[in-house]
């Protein structure tokens, strides 16, 4: 699998897939919908799918001495690698914000969602949605990327709007916790977000195996 991942990184990927990882640092921005950072990271990955399609990447991969399902696995591994790198940047930003800048006025006077552990969990949900809707949708044809991406954009923005506004609902104020306030709930939210990411990614990958096996290249 190392070889197929290397192939994804060196031949299939777009430079933008790597550059857009830096949008993970948007978690530092005050007064900004930070989850858009996660969304922008996925735009970079989408660009990679577009570049790969133009380079006949899937057909090329199908000629390599690997099983057809390993082509699917390679794509998911690459996508998850990019998402993990961005997640690490976001996590770094969150750690700094809940420790060094926990009392920063700039961050506290923010009508939008605070970049805390709940936000990090929601970033996982955005990544999971991308894997479920876009990557899974791509493998229905191994060619068409427009429709699954548009569906993903709509769903992702609805989730972002919901997540950014949720802490204004009475009783859910703890979702906007600063520093280590409500740390137990924050950790549960992060774990829940990560679990949703895993679930959507694994189920999407399994569905993609079956669909890709039936496709004529």
């Amino acid at each position, binding site marked *: 699998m190392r070889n197929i991942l*290397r*192939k994804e990184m*060196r031949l299939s990927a777009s430079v933008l897939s790597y550059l857009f990882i830096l949008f993970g640092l948007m978690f530092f921005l005050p007064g900004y919908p930070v989850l858009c950072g996660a969304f922008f990271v996925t735009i970079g990955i989408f660009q990679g799918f577009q570049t790969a399609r133009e*380079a006949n990447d899937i057909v090329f991969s199908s000629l390599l001495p690997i099983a057809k399902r390993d082509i699917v696995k390679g794509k998911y591994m690459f996508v998850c690698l990019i998402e993990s790198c961005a997640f690490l940047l976001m996590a770094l930003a969150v750690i700094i914000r809940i420790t060094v800048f926990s009392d920063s006025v700039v961050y506290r006077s923010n009508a939008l969602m605070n970049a805390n552990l709940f936000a990090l969990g929601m970033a996982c949900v955005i990544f999971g949605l991308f894997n479920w809707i876009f990557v899974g949708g791509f493998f229905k044809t191994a060619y068409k990327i427009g429709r699954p991406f548009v569906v993903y954009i709509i769903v992702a923005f609805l989730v972002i709007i919901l997540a950014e506004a949720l802490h204004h609902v009475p009783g859910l104020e703890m979702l906007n916790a600063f520093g280590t306030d409500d740390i137990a709930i924050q950790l549960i939210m992060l774990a829940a977000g990560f679990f949703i990411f895993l679930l959507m990614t694994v189920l999407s990958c399994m569905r993609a195996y079956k669909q890709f096996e039936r496709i004529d290249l």
Partner: protein
Amino acid sequence: MVIAEVQDLVKSYSSFELKNISFGLESGRITGFIGRNGAGKTTTIKAMLNMIHPDSGTVRYFGKPFLGNEADIKKRIGYSTGTVSWYPRKKIRDIVNIVKRFYDTWDEAAYRNYLDIFAIDEIKTPLELSEGMKVKVNLMLALAHKSEVLILDEPTSGLDPFSRNELLGVFTKLRNSGVTVFFSTHIISDIEKCADDIIYISKGQIIAAMPKADFIRQYSEPGETLEDTVLRLEGGGAHA
């Protein structure tokens, strides 16, 4: 010994159908797969490599079914197509550096040798190559990992007569060293020059699969070249 076997392959499209394609490839021989454009050559070859999903039928290599042994079998076979280029803006060298890691049997000396034979500049990108050179690059990738079976879709299309001749010479050398070569073409003279066996497909149906000498004996009329024979069979729609 039959090294690759296709049995009762069926694939239906709205306007075309592969009808119960069956044939075997004998080890250490060159088999030419002939038929006019649209006869079903590429569809058959893609089905042999699980690139298209047949409605029914089986493909076996080295006595094992392809499905379920895909990765192992692909290590022992080489495939090349003359019509598609991969990663048009990547250097040939970079593509090769990735591909060779997939093969334990990658032969760097053979690769360097084919670079020389085909006069390929590995610093170039596929975008900078002519169609003929792209064919050679694909072929080089298939040859450099010591394939036991080479499956080549239209490898001589787009090549100049000199390169075609060189390539047919390479096929003969490979055959003499025990490699099985299976190549599709609509250039009958290529078959005439180097093939041992012929598989002739027309309208999605195998018309003949036999040694070239038997084909000529069975189908040719006195004074006819192989090309004349195939043209007559196609023109008359004759089926055996």
